[in-house]
């Protein structure tokens, strides 16, 4: 008989084979180490992703629920009596709701405004208010020719509350009525808005608007106050500049909530230019007298009538 081949299970036969044979316990150890290692790695990776998420998202400033009412007074052309009435009206309202008043004088911003019409002063005033009350949440610029007629209504419940504002917002509405091409965005959420404003029959009204205290406010005010806008001779100065900005700069438009005129800026009966359904009715929060701006405060009879009305209401309550 021929010899068969040597036994096949010779230790030399399969080179490298023995090296993969680890004792069972060692393999188990390795497995645990691998599992732990991988999970730590995955954990760190996820963590790094969470923390490297962009810092660009606007976080609401950690302010109080405070509202600052900003009023620019032209002490040179307003009479003392007129000014004191305005101040009394606003102080009362602020006291009721815990708001803060910021009264500024046009003359303080004369240098900043330069050769442009002095109505531009409202923009640096707003910037000044932002710098003065960095913790406040809202800044309400209110026309000096306006009165708060319903002092018990708070701004929050009337306008600023999330649900309330979302129901008020005019979506897909022309910036320049009635048929302007540029319209407000149809899908807008309260948390994405920074500017709450109204329009009358001619366009946006910068006399009364609310700004949230966020990065946007600084950008918006600086852009608005750009020297080239001031020097452009817009017919209605800062009001038309605002119209212009909202029609050419989508980053601003996307943050604007347009609300019906009567919620923030109802016009008195004698004023012209109110939007449809924009004229004051009893119970509205604010009444504006745009005619007083042109006529001067001395001829502003309507104002004094309504002031008396308000006084009665306050004393009665």
């Amino acid at each position: 008989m021929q010899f068969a081949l040597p036994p096949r299970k010779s230790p030399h036969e399969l080179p490298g084979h023995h090296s993969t044979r680890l004792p069972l316990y060692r393999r188990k150890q390795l497995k645990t180490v691998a599992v732990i290692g991988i999970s730590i790695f995955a954990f760190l990776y996820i963590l790094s992703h969470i923390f490297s998420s962009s810092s660009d998202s606007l976080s609401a400033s950690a302010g109080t629920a405070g509202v600052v009412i900003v009023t620019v007074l032209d002490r040179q052309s307003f009479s003392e009596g007129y000014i004191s009435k305005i101040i009394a009206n606003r102080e009362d309202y602020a006291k009721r709701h815990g708001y803060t008043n910021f009264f500024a004088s046009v003359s303080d911003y004369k240098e900043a405004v330069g050769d442009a019409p002095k109505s531009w002063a409202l923009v640096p005033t707003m910037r000044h208010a932002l710098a003065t009350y960095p913790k406040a949440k809202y800044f309400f610029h209110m026309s000096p020719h306006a009165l708060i007629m319903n002092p018990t209504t708070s701004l929050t419940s009337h306008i600023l509350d999330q649900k309330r504002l979302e129901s008020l917002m005019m979506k897909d509405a022309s910036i320049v009525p009635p048929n302007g091409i540029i319209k407000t965005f149809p899908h807008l959420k309260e948390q994405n808005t920074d500017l709450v404003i109204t329009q009358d029959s001619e366009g946006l009204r910068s006399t009364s608007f609310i700004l949230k205290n966020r990065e946007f406010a600084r950008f918006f005010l600086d852009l608005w106050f750009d020297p080239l806008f001031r020097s452009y001779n817009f017919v209605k100065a800062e009001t038309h500049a605002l119209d212009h900005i909202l029609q050419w700069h989508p980053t601003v438009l996307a943050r604007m909530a347009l609300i019906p005129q009567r919620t923030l800026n109802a016009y008195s009966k004698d004023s012209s230019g109110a939007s449809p359904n924009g004229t004051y009715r009893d119970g509205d929060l604010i009444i504006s007298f745009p005619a007083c701006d042109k006529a001067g405060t001395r001829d502003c009879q309507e104002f004094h009538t309504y002031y008396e009305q308000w006084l009665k209401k306050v004393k009665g309550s």
Partner: protein
Amino acid sequence: MSLSRSPSPHRGGGWSSPGLTPGSGRSSPRGFSPMTRGVKNVSWTAAKAKSDELHKYPSFDTRNDGFFFRQKRRISARMSSFRGTTARHGYVDKDDYGRGVLHGAGAGSCTGMLGWFGNLLRRGKMRILFVALILWMGYLLLWSTIVQLYRQSPLGGGSKFVIILASNVEGGVMEWKGAREWAVERNSIRNKREYARKWGYKLEITNMLAKKRYSHEWRESWEKVDVIREIMRKNPQAEWFWWLDLNTWIMEYGTSLQSHIFDNIDSHVYRDINEYNPLNITHPPPHFYLDDLARAPTGDGDESSLHLLLSQDCSGFSLGSFFLRRSVWTERLLDAWWDPVMYEQMHSQWPHKEQSALEYIYQSQPWTRSGVGFLPQRRINSFPLGACGDDNDPAFHYQEADRDFVVNMASCMLGRDCWSEIYTYRAISNDLNRSPWDGVSEQIRGIRAKIFGAPDEVD
């Protein structure tokens, strides 16, 4: 009698058995094939014919014998040397197994090579050598690919950067391109492409054809803004966007943006423009009604609030090479950058169009200042001689000794020669970045050229 396997066959060997393959010279046993097993009463000639027939095929035939047989063949292939020695000596003691294997392997046979190789593998040192060889070859062939893949991935961080290269500036109807313009464009694109590939960045080449839309509104240069917006939309994964003019050259391929700037932005950037202020901009803005942040000379000092990184040359902002971060701030800047009312008043006074407009916005709108960081010019934007003066000024001009990162042939189209400048800097860059291996291969090429007398022109 049925054998479980063949005994050592000799060439033309005397011992024969039906179905076996005498004298095959192959070292692996053949006898166990199913073909041969069932055959019992076959004559010698028939068997021989059969085996001849079989031998027409290469020694490792591809008949599918089933898993076991294939495995067995593989196993037995490893036993070649044993068979080789047995063939020689006729008998080998079991204890002598493997002795003299290396020398004994039948070198003449075709499987001898395999066997020799197998033996080689069995030797410890040789095995290490072999593995090292494989690894080395893998390194040569695959390593750069692997590294590039890694850098492209979110882990490597390369996907966070997009390079925007403006090509075809004012091309199209306005101006026909000559050979030199084409050369500039071709080379510049290749330069960026190689750099981007190396570090896993995305390269976006934009076609800045003169579009009617922009010339109609006298705002050709503002197309830049739209292009950046468009590319930001297209690359949602990216964070930083690096704008490069066509007339630039990235000198250092080995420098990543991360290590050069972004790993340590704070140490490279100055926020207070007073450090170098050719435009004499009043900084910080002096207005009393601004908040503390706007009036702080260095913004909030947090590097995450930097959204625009650019450099200043001798005459002001330089936009041949700058970085923008995707952010709300940047969207606002891009939005504010062009405004019809501003431009209508200024277009005759802004010599550098969008560059002048940016300088203007930086001056007039305080919100911009805290988001802008300035890099020393030579970090991203070295000038060649002729731009910003003809004398070598280390504030502006490329310094070979410092291995500056990027050269921008700024305004080379105004009376200078863009192509010759790019050519010069390309040569300098190639020279500086020669690896030792490049030297060796060049020498080899030189020797070959000497021997064959055929100097092969490269590019």
